[in-house]
């Protein structure tokens, strides 16, 4: 099985962040075996802060991949490849006029030029697209449909990889992007159609799915910008877009479509329409969407009706209270869901490792210790650099986790997180949560990390320390990998 993801726009990149973290937690292949997730980012704004953050997390994740954690390890098991971002724009100063050579078009093909004038206002045609389509999907759709070329660059890479993958099983392509903005709203349906038309001739076992982000955040309008997405119009834009998906029969194109949103919307701390400033904090909607993506990738959708059958199944997921999110609210196919169990184990591993195990082990250079014994004969500096790589990635995961559990919501509604006690690992700073420094997290508090879990499953750091000294029997495991794996397995045992 080969899994492909195409993330469009800022929301698509944020979903990719969630996919990397969920892959690290082992959710991509619950039944064992390593899977490869090939991801492709698409955004006209190549320096979008959300894409930068996604690439940063990807680099941290990949730095951990060479560590030999064993073949049966769920932890960091899957290969993730990230390509892009690909921009449909020819250059950074592009506008519709320059992309379609409007001046030339008027001379060569005045009918097309008139049609373009009819469909797009002068402002729309002249506005710089370097920072995205500014909430104008009509502009984006036109630009996307003329610029995707399967003969070169990223699209050629996707096309070639999908073709070579279809001999080994189903080829699953999943797209993600917002439905209410500019890039995602324009790119997801356009790219989906183009991919389907191009690939279905060559690949019989092609499966396509998408996640559509309904409005889930808001921000203050940016002053002095005449053309920009208006948060007040998000709901109306989403409604129109959903009609479009229905009328254009996307349910016949895709095996699965997930639509996720949230109300009241989260307030983004920095209002920006592009570039590095557009680095919106993660949101739990992306966690839900990520679980949807993995459900699509790994679930037996082939057993159900196929798009060509004309039979569609609507599955609804909602939460019990509007202002909170608990473990029970996260969509699961069974209780207990092995995916959520893996996610909890990874959360406990991250907290234990970053705040207790790694700081301690890093002081053991000249000290003989049962934990150090697991590293074996591996040179200390090599082991330490591997352990450091794990810690750096784990920090990025904890930051993501903290962000999705501490939403700043618009209006009077206060979000009550029911997943983890954020005060165990987080502290307020300038009205925002950030991770506590190492040494500031109390060992006893970790027992209260998970909220709404049975009392008997309170994790204990001492028990994790003790279990972490257990030798793990597996193939392809050595050095720092043995120690990390032992800690990870200890987190499972301690949590139960």
């Amino acid at each position, binding site marked *: 099985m080969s899994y492909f993801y195409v993330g469009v726009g800022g929301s698509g990149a944020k979903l990719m962040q969630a996919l990397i973290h969920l892959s690290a937690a082992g959710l991509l292949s619950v039944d064992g075996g390593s899977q490869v997730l090939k991801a492709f980012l698409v955004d006209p704004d190549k320096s979008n802060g959300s894409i930068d953050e996604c690439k940063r997390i990807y680099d941290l994740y990949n730095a951990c991949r060479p560590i030999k954690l064993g073949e049966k390890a769920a932890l960091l098991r899957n290969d993730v490849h990230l390509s892009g971002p690909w921009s449909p724009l020819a250059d950074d100063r592009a506008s519709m006029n320059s992309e379609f050579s409007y001046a030339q078009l008027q001379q060569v093909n005045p009918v097309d030029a008139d049609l373009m004038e009819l469909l797009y206002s002068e402002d729309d045609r002249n506005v710089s697209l370097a920072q995205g389509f500014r909430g104008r999907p009509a502009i984006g759709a036109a630009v996307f449909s003329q610029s995707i070329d399967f003969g070169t660059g990223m699209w050629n890479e996707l096309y070639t990889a999908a073709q070579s993958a279809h001999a080994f099983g189903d080829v699953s392509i999943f797209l993600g992007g917002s439905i209410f903005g500019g890039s995602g709203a324009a790119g997801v349906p356009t790219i989906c159609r183009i991919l389907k038309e191009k690939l279905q001739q060559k690949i019989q076992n092609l499966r396509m799915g998408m996640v559509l982000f309904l409005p889930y955040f808001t921000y203050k309008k940016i002053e002095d910008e005449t053309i920009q997405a208006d948060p007040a119009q998000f709901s109306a834009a989403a409604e129109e877009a959903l009609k479009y998906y229905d009328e254009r029969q996307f349910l016949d194109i895709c095996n699965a479509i997930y639509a996720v949103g949230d109300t009241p919307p989260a307030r983004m701390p920095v209002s920006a329409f592009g570039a590095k400033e557009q680095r919106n904090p993660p949101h739990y909607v992306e966690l839900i969407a990520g679980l949807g993506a993995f459900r699509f990738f790994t679930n037996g959708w082939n057993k159900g009706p196929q798009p060509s059958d004309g039979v569609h199944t609507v599955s609804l997921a909602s939460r019990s209270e509007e202002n909170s999110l608990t473990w029970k609210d996260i969509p699961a196919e069974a209780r207990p869901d092995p995916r959520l169990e893996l996610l909890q184990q990874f959360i406990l591993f991250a907290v234990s490792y970053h705040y207790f195990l790694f700081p*301690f082990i890093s002081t053991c250079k000249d000290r003989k210790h*049962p934990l150090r014994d697991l590293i074996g004969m591996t040179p200390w500096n090599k082991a330490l650099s591997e352990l450091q790589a794990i810690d750096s990635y784990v920090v990025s995961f904890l930051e993501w986790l903290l962000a999705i559990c501490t939403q700043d919501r618009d209006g009077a509604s206060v979000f009550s997180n029911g997943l983890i006690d954020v005060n165990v690992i987080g502290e307020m700073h300038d009205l925002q949560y950030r991770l506590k420094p190492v040494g500031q997290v109390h060992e006893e508090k970790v027992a209260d990390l998970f909220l709404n879990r049975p009392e008997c499953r309170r994790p204990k750091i001492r028990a994790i*320390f003790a279990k972490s000294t257990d030798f793990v029997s597996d193939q392809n495991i050595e050095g720092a990998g043995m120690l990390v794996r032992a800690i990870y397995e200890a987190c499972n045992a301690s949590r139960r």
Partner: protein
Amino acid sequence: MMKRVLTEVVGILFIYAIYAIAVVLFYDVDISAPENWPIWPLVVWAGSFLAMAIWYVLASVVIAPQQPLRVWAGVWLLLLSLVIIGAAAATYVEDFYQTDTFQPNPWLHFVGGVGAYYLASLLFSPLFAKYVVWPARFVRKW
């Protein structure tokens, strides 16, 4: 984990059993007459055993695993010094109140009391204290 704890506890009991046999042999104790048992060797034996038990409990459930080596070593040395003081006190008192019944064996208090504590903690300290006592890093292979 239970196997490891069991091994350690049995090992400690074994060492103190040998120490007890040494006391019986060197003091020529009549086991069938408890009223005639020599008091001071038993006090040192019990004190050493108690120190070892305290060390085992502290190292197992009280001292945090991530504590620096100086904390572990400090606690172990404190208990060792109490055993030494106890052995010295017993030697002094035994010599002061010498009777015809038992010949004092001052060396046994040190070799037995201090030695049993040292040997038991060297070989059978719990998991996170297993390398605290020198030269455990060279001899502890379990």
